[in-house]
């Protein structure tokens, strides 16, 4: 039976995140972007909303159950406030959610509670690699078996909080198949490079990694000795990023719409011109369309539908184009003012471009 109505519980969560996203993340976004850092208390406040904790079962010290649908609802709201802040708050999920989805029982018991029980700490994951045709299913970082260990070699990039991370999952190709490996801070051969400078996301510390013969005990392969299926992890990441793309798009739409209703031109508000109004109509329509695409894909993941991974991919494909279109138009609607850093639309336009690139930077 179709329904487009979030549950009461979800509605309450959305409201709480929305308040935080606007009052805290959005309020801090510009300074954080310019200064290149997010205040730790800001991240902690978002962490204390308990979104990730509520997606972990009691057995692993959480207080709920994971739902990708709840996840996309939350991710959109976080990103509506500020993308860098949203990714920062949710970074520990890059570590716990794949373990919850694909880890062995022992891994879940060992690795999830220390993250969930504590204040926000930098647990993270490394998926992306510095090649123009980076493909999560054809990694150039490799893992090979050597005695009782796996040996990892390769280059990673866009790894959030890598420099301070307590532990991380590094994804590598094991005989052509993407597999996760749990690596603790300070592992020999793991080198964190200099913080990356990017088109956007300046508030979020992202690092390159070099893996020079990093030895990982066999027990630390995600899923244990038998390994795991990477597809559900990637799909859960794709819907999260799709939802965030929708959130950033919505932020840009709302801001430019409010501006267009204030700004006078030729004796009327600029929003009263069809040239602008039609852009707004198309932006709103595309956002609604792609939100539903992300919702459906997330719902399919929760239901274990066979086509879920494909739909998650389609949802990200649609949402990343929407984010670019909408954020570009938001700048356009503000005209020259949109180009000035006093307004947030230029920031959202830079973030909007990122969704075609970001893979595995968020997961729900």
């Amino acid at each position: 039976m179709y329904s487009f109505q979030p549950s009461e519980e979800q509605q309450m969560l959305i409201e709480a995140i929305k308040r935080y996203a606007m009052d805290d993340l959005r309020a801090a976004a510009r300074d954080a972007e310019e200064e290149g850092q997010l205040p730790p208390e800001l991240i902690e406040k978002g962490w204390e909303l308990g979104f990730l904790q509520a997606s972990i079962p009691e057995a692993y010290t959480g207080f709920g159950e994971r739902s990708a649908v709840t996840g996309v609802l939350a991710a959109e709201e976080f990103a509506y406030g500020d993308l860098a802040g949203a990714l920062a708050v949710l970074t520990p999920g890059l570590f716990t959610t794949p373990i919850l989805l694909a880890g062995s029982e022992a891994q879940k018991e060992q690795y999830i509670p220390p993250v969930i029980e504590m204040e926000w700490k930098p647990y993270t994951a490394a998926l992306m690699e510095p090649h123009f045709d980076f493909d999560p299913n054809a990694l150039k970082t490799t893992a090979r078996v050597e005695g009782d260990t796996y040996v990892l070699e390769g280059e990673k990039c866009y790894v959030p909080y890598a420099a301070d991370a307590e532990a991380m999952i590094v994804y590598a190709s094991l005989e052509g198949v993407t597999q996760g490996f749990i690596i603790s801070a300070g592992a020999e051969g793991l080198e964190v490079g200099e913080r990356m400078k990017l088109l956007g996301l300046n508030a979020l510390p992202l690092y390159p990694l070099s893996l020079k013969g990093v030895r990982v005990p066999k027990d630390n392969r995600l899923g244990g000795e038998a390994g795991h299926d990477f597809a559900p992890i990637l799909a859960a990441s794709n819907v999260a990023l799709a939802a965030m793309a929708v959130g950033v798009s919505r932020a840009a739409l709302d801001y430019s719409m409010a501006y267009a209703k204030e700004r006078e031109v030729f004796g009327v508000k600029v929003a009263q011109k069809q040239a602008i109004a039609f852009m707004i109509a198309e932006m709103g329509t595309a956002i609604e369309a792609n939100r539903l695409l992300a919702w459906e894909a997330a719902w399919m993941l929760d239901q274990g539908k066979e086509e879920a991974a494909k739909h998650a991919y389609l949802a990200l494909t649609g949402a990343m184009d929407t984010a670019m279109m909408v954020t570009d138009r938001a700048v356009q609607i503000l005209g020259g003012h949109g180009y000035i850093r006093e307004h947030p639309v230029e920031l959202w336009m830079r973030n909007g471009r990122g969704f075609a690139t970001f893979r595995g930077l968020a997961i729900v």
Partner: protein
Amino acid sequence: MIDFETPKPIKQVCNVVETVAVNMMRPVSRYFDEHEHEIPWDFINFMHNAIRSMGGTSMAPKEEKSAEEGGEKRPPIGYQRLGHMVEMLAWGDAGLYLCLPGGMLGSAAVAAAGSPEQKKRFLSRFMGEKPVFDAMAMTEPQAGSDTSAIRATAVLDEETNEWVLNGEKIFVTAGHKALIDSDGFVVVWASIDPSAGRAGMRAFVVEAGTPGIKVTKLEHKLGIRVSDTAAIVLQDCRVPFENILGSPTVEKSTKGFKGAMATFDATRPIIAAQAVGIARATLELLKEELEKNGITIRYGLPRQKLTNIEREIIDMEATLRAAWLLTIKALWMADNKIHNPKEASMAKVYAGDAVVKITQRAVELLGPLGYSRELLLEKWFRDAKITDLYEGTGQINRLVVARHMLGYRGKELR
């Protein structure tokens, strides 16, 4: 709770409709495209009997029944069901779909604005042995999207207690079938007070055989050629007083006009469903043809690794799915009586754009095969365009969406 599961009864009916689409529509698609204005009686009679045997008068949602005693009331799904059926029928053939007897726009207007007596009087005819058609006559040569420019008039003759209708209507879908080929009716929009603008606009039921109404022309069209698009002239056409839908007095408001527009809240997503059906047919054919040539789509790759054809198809699939979800959401809102003019227009804007783009790209991508009448693709390319035109062009629907988003009334955003 957010849920995307298609209800079982809808799945079942869709299976039946798919059989119809495959066996009764697709095989005659080309023939009727090339024999414009020939009436597909075999298909019509078959569908009429099928709908009757299922106990319905049309495909349109029935009046909601009250909750069964003791049982839990099920959420209404009538419009969602209709949307699914229309999608499947349009997948079969968008023109033949428009030839279905009963339950078209005229009935929708009667169902939306008619009194219980009127519903009984006008809608019971669809239950008979012979198929009966209905139509809506709103557009005039000088009044398309701008319905306030309608010039047709209705004057009450108090002596005989009849409305006297005068005017000229065009683009009346199934007008010929409603007035000439069956004992149907046309719902005609006319003004009872031209000085009152939209507030004076009313709908009148004009039954087949009424003196003074004439079909003067059948249009020759780009696509959906099997569906007749009639021009109608009303010359001192007299209908009983009781044939007016809604109040016979003019208030200082546009309530009557808004009543007419409310019909669109359900019909616009239905047009979107047609668009989605045509687009799905196109995409399926495109993928089949490519597969014959050894091309399968590698989902999941970054764009940098995709071929152009793969990228196009993946983008089309995302767009098509999104269009369908917008459609279902708008229909779900209609079923649940949630005010949905914005969502209804969004669905139509998005689906209209999607099907036009998808059919146009598909013809291009299949090269000489795409342009040829050997395949139905070029027909779908022609059929698709209508969904971006009727029931409000893409531009009118953008205007509706923008007004709702911005909180503007018509005079603030023209």
